[in-house]
């Protein structure tokens, strides 16, 4: 059974069967990653371009590794948006890449909507590796995979995303995907970091991290983005750490096992303490490994679709 779409633009509108198919396929590839020879010939002869308009070494390396494990030919095209704005327009850049006869494009861009726009000007399969503060579907899928791997299910779980929700692309994809899978999703953060009308997506909102810990099975702790004018929205990192930081003291208060995720890179001692980040309940490094498997699954399912 193939995926409904030939692109992965986001988890909004991606149905449950497709999410399950990706997670199941990822399980197979996860096993491949444990073998001595971690390579399969599935995408031999396919060319994939990693088109990154915004630096993100981790995501790019994860995609690149997934492509190599599937035996695809990989090209990395990393550029800053400002240079495309100056001379060559974004569309020219894409047309040029298209002319090289590529089969798939993995795109990361500062502007929401770019992956969708790509589907209109390119024939390649498009995979969204993060567009603005919109979606980052493979990140959410690997989060879901990691939760399921540890807790055996998604349905009925109470999962809270903690941090700067308004400026996160991970949050929205997680909300869409987890809601589709029947989880109870909530967010927690300073109210200045919660986007307008978010509750209308069926999401519960916490501004008290203790309450969030108390009422949830999973915390997905986001990196506090220091670079995005955070100063307008929180007084200081110190205040954030003191009131929203996930620490052992907080977890111990409720004496419960709560699964901790973090998409990385971690600001240790800010949104999460080192003790928690390295502690018994976290799956942070598993997420990294699972990320490769998820990206392999997505590349495989889209690349072999037609």
């Amino acid at each position: 059974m193939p995926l409904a779409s030939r692109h992965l633009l986001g988890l909004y509108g991606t149905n449950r069967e497709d999410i399950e198919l990706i997670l199941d396929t990822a399980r197979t590839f996860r096993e491949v990653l444990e073998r001595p020879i971690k390579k399969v010939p599935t995408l031999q002869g396919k060319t994939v371009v990693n088109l990154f308009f915004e630096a993100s070494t981790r995501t790019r390396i994860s995609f690149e590794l997934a492509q190599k494990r599937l035996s695809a030919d990989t090209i990395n095209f990393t550029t800053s948006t400002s240079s495309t704005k100056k001379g060559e327009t974004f569309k020219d850049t894409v047309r040029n890449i298209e002319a090289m006869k590529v089969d798939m494009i993995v795109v990361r861009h500062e502007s929401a909507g770019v992956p969708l726009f790509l589907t209109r000007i390119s024939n390649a399969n498009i995979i969204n590796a993060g567009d603005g503060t919109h979606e980052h579907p493979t990140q959410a899928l690997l989060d879901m995979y990691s939760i399921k791997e540890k807790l055996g299910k998604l349905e009925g779980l109470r999962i809270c995303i903690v941090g700067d929700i308004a400026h996160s692309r991970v949050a929205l994809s997680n909300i869409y995907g987890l809601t589709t899978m029947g989880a109870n999703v909530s967010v927690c953060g300073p109210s200045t970091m919660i986007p307008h009308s978010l509750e209308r997506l069926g999401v519960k909102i916490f501004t008290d991290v203790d309450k969030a810990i108390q009422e949830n099975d999973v915390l997905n702790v986001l990196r506090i983005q220091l670079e995005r004018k955070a100063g307008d929205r929180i007084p200081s990192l110190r205040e954030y750490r003191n009131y929203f930081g996930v620490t052992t003291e907080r977890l111990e208060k409720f004496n419960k096992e709560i699964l901790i995720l973090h998409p990385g890179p971690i600001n240790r001692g800010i949104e999460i303490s080192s003790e928690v980040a390295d502690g018994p309940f976290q799956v942070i490094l598993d997420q990294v490994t699972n990320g490769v498997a998820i990206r392999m699954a997505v590349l495989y399912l889209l690349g072999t679709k037609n």
Partner: protein
Amino acid sequence: MNIIIKGTTILNPEQNINEKTDLIISDGVISKFGNLAESDYKNAKVYEFNNSYCVPGLFDMHVHLREPGREDEETIITGSDSAAAGGFTGVACMPNTNPAIDTAEVVKFIKEKSQQHLVEVFPIAAATQERKGEGLSPMIELFEAGAIGFSDDGNAIKSASLLRNAFEYVKMFDSVIIEHCEDESFADGAMNEGIISTSLGLPPIPSIAEDIIVMRDIITAEYSNGKIHIAHISSKNAIELVRQAKKKGINITAEATPHHFTLTEESLKSYDTNYKMNPPLRTKEDVDAVIEGLKDGTIDCIASDHAPHSIEEKEYEFIYAPNGIIGLETTLGLTLTELYHKKHLNIVQIIEKLSINPRKILKIPTPQIKEGEKANLTIFDPNSIWTVDISKFKSKCKNSPFNNKLLTGKMLAVINKNKMLFEDKFIHI
């Protein structure tokens, strides 16, 4: 040359005319009004416009003609062609050109460029030097050169104290300040804030960005007894503020664009940059409030905010793409389709919003339809059905979200300055 206009209903609410009768125009002047005699047909070219209205030429008080500076996007001539094709005989052009309309030379340059055209172009000058919000522009000089209003459109006038001075200063010659109402501190977004911006992950602009400046402007206008016109009003709260200000007797008027009474933020779901404008498309509630404001007179007129942008620029990534759409050639059709045929406004109100009120705000006399007057007329069929085709637009740019939209109501001819645009051709009359 004599031309005869037949079969049309002459309508000018200001003169209390609403009758089906004929007109003779001789060398651009109305020479006869009423039923014609046999002898009148001698040496005259007859134009039959059945089922149409003939009204004082339509006027759009908010267009961007891009010249000087961005002649690749529009010129005074192509913008005027576009205006005529849309049924307008007059436009007021905004000063955010390069250089800005902040010297008498630029005002005169625009006047000269448009002199031979059917469409009259009235420059609105910058309120501050280079539109920087740092010091008043030479307003008296600009006014004497032909500027008919002052605005920093694209931005609100930067500070309340400067705005107050602008009000005080233009009072000396009874001119008007036209404000683009947007609080700068909220201005880095790409669409209206709400559930749609949240679910699309696009940086939001809250509607209070508009409301705050409308309120500031009302308070400042009241204090300094100034004359304020609110450009492209779009938010429900802002409309209510204007309604209350009018009740208090403050000298305030407002305009709305066709896109703000036709489209909602739902359109943004396509990430099509032709739906990216400023003020942004808002909610259904706001659209209803715009229509209500037009109905009860809170909003005096309809203006296109015609904003040509090249395809290349509109194809930038969403957050980088420029704001705005062209509108001169769809305004009449959208107004008739959305407001007249949906019974929100009657035909007299439509003519007030599209012809009489914008001129009143700018103190330009309404063209009179009577013998001895220069013919400045728009003839349109309110029931003609047509499909918008951007490839046929006279504007240099094609950035319209209304391509392929079916509209009811179409311009048939415009007449002004001894010229007539009919069946896509300018004819000397």
